[in-house]
């Protein structure tokens, strides 16, 4: 590959890594804001989302420029397209985290409402999945990517149980609004996990050249 392509790829790669760090931090803060009902943390996260959007657009523009200028092929092309897709997924994850933060500020005043413990566990698992999928990207670790893909079922199940419990609480305490906020937060967390799975699948494509999406039945 030409030297210019190499330099440009490295630069875009570093920007993407920097973005991924910020997004990971955002999710952690959003969850903490929800559980601890910390409103300042919540508004911090919501403000961060704007920055993330801008960075995402920059990275995408850089990647498109590279495609036009250097016309990479084979492994370079896979790497570039994977970076674009991960960039996109990270921006979606940031939006979802921002959503969780907004729900956190909704629940700010409802200090009596018991947020299910399972939600915390679900969030921890989702954060772990995001971090592992990015580690898999950085280290080109396919086994780790497959582990992330397999973890999604557990998160989905936890989501179902959280919804059940929220339904029960709504019934018992007639607290509809906070329960709905919680439900929305839970869904956002589950979607974050789904996007982590997307990132893992993209990594597998980048390394193997094989698209494993929609084929999870036989990936063991």
């Amino acid at each position, binding site marked *: 590959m030409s030297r210019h392509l190499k330099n440009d790829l490295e630069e875009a790669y570093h920007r993407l890594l920097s973005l991924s760090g910020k997004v990971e931090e955002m999710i952690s803060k959003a969850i903490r804001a929800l559980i601890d009902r910390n409103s300042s943390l919540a508004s911090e996260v919501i403000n961060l989302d704007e920055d993330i959007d801008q960075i995402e657009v920059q990275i995408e523009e850089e990647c498109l420029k590279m495609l036009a200028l250097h016309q990479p092929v084979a492994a370079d092309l896979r790497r570039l397209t994977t970076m674009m897709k991960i960039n996109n997924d990270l921006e979606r994850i940031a939006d979802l985290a921002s959503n969780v933060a907004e729900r956190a500020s909704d629940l700010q005043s409802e200090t009596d409402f018991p947020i299910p413990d399972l939600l915390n566990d679900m969030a921890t698992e989702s954060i772990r999945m995001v971090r592992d999928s990015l580690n898999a990207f950085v280290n080109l*670790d396919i086994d780790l990517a497959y582990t992330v893909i397999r973890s999604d079922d557990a998160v989905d199940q936890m989501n179902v149980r959280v919804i059940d419990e929220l339904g029960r609480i709504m019934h018992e305490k007639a607290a509809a609004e906070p329960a709905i906020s919680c439900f929305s937060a839970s869904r956002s967390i589950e979607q974050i996990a789904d996007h982590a799975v997307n990132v893992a699948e993209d990594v597998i494509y980048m390394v193997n050249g094989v698209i494993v999406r929609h084929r999870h039945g036989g990936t063991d």
Partner: protein
Amino acid sequence: MKNLLLLVAAWSAISIALGVIGSFELNRIWRTQASEELVRDAAAARNSIDARTWAVPAESDPAWKRMEKELRLAVVPVVDAAGAPTVGDAPQSPPLEWATIESEHRLSTVVALDHPLGMANAIRVTRLAAPNSAQRVWWIAWSLLNISAVAMTLYGARWLRESLNSQRQNLQAWVESTQSENEDFLLADAEIEEPSLASAMSLIANNVNKSHRRLKLAKERSELVFDNLREGVMAVDHGGKVLLANRALVRLLKLPDEDVLYRPFLEVVRTPAIAELIASVLTHRSTLEQEVEIGTQPNYLRVAASPLPLGKSSSGEARSGALITARDETYVKRVELIRRDFVANASHELRTPLAAIRAYAETLQLGAIEDREAAENFIGNIITQSDRIDSLVQGMLQLSRVEVGIALDFAEFDVLAALEPCLAAAEAMASTKGVEVIKTEVTGGVQIRSDRDAFQTIAGNLLSNAVRYTPAGGTVRVKTSIVGDTLRVEVCDTGIGMRQQDLERAFERFYRAEKARSSDTGGTGLGLSIVKHLTQALGGTVSATSKPHEGSSFVIQLPMPQPPNIDEDPFPEGVANPE
């Protein structure tokens, strides 16, 4: 070695050259000599023939026979059969030619006679071409020289080959050892037959092995220290590539278990705050220190980054990387938070009753004092609130006393007897709420050696908590038992319970789950903190479990010294005599 070969080669060349040149020269001299003598003989013969008169035919003359024998004389016609003259033009330089006469190689010449002899008028004179003795010696010497030269060459070559072979054999073993996977990667062979080359290499091998071992030892030592630091340390070069990172750093930053050497730091450390710190130090070469939050708990790290001088680049400018250290300050931070909370809570707790007292007093001042019933009511409230302040202050004092470490008074007392007043108070409180207090115990008469007041405070606090947080219709169970050499006191309730994260912080000062319920149920928020410190001061432990909406359970374990068993043999067999 090479010199010898050169010498031998030169020797051979010179001798051959000498031989060839010498031969030619001698040949020439000899020929010249022979031809001169022949010319002389021919002239002499002609003169002597011309000087006398010969009989006819001349061959019958005895003098002729003598001359013929000496000079191999022959009379030849001046012009031969073909018509060519047999005599040369100039009488001074007669034609000389080699010819084979009577199977002898002879130099011959033909001279013309001034007085023709019979029909012929020329004579042929010949001379034998035989090398003289000088020549023979020379030829023998030359041959010997050449043979000796060749022999010496052959011998020299063989000697050289043998010596090279033996050197190669000595080094063969050495070469094989460098290809094997030894600890000392060069083999030092003590038994070298051939000195110089191989033994020099053996010496080198020894030295290299020694330095190698020393280096490895030094490296292992520094690695040991480095990897066992509690602080995380990472070094980054001027290009942003990780030079080293110790185990503590991997643990603190929760990095994956991959090799990080020479990878760009952005790949390894994705935390934005730390990445920005490193980038800043690399560009501005400044020293920075910052507190960084990691993870979801979160953990707090104090990260310091300073420039790392890395020598000079090829163009002469100083290169600088970054050295990063990270220290886990989570505990310190948490203590800070607790302290802050404590101060805030304490002032808040005190302010509320104070405000109430002031309000009541003001109201009385404004005229409520005239209304007897209202005045009595208000004064009652003022007293209640002051009691509240009092118990709060008492609690804080007690706590600080316990934390400082008051003198405990250890004495033997009966557990049940000590528990009685606490149980009575709890039952009184419970009955007003509709809560039942049940006690289950093991056998009575359990004695323990401890501080009675402290024990009662502990039990009292646990019981009042249990009753306070249990709604009407619930039960509070008290159980005492002996497990091994500890006294176990359990207080369980069927109350509202608490979440896992509240349980973890339950023993903190002023911590109450669901902060909104601060003054609803009464209580200072200090009870469990006091329980924890007192229990620890008594040498015991306290633990709690809880399930939201189902209840909580608190367990105190206090050490009970075992009474000595008189029947036991103090020296079981085999202990005193270890044979």
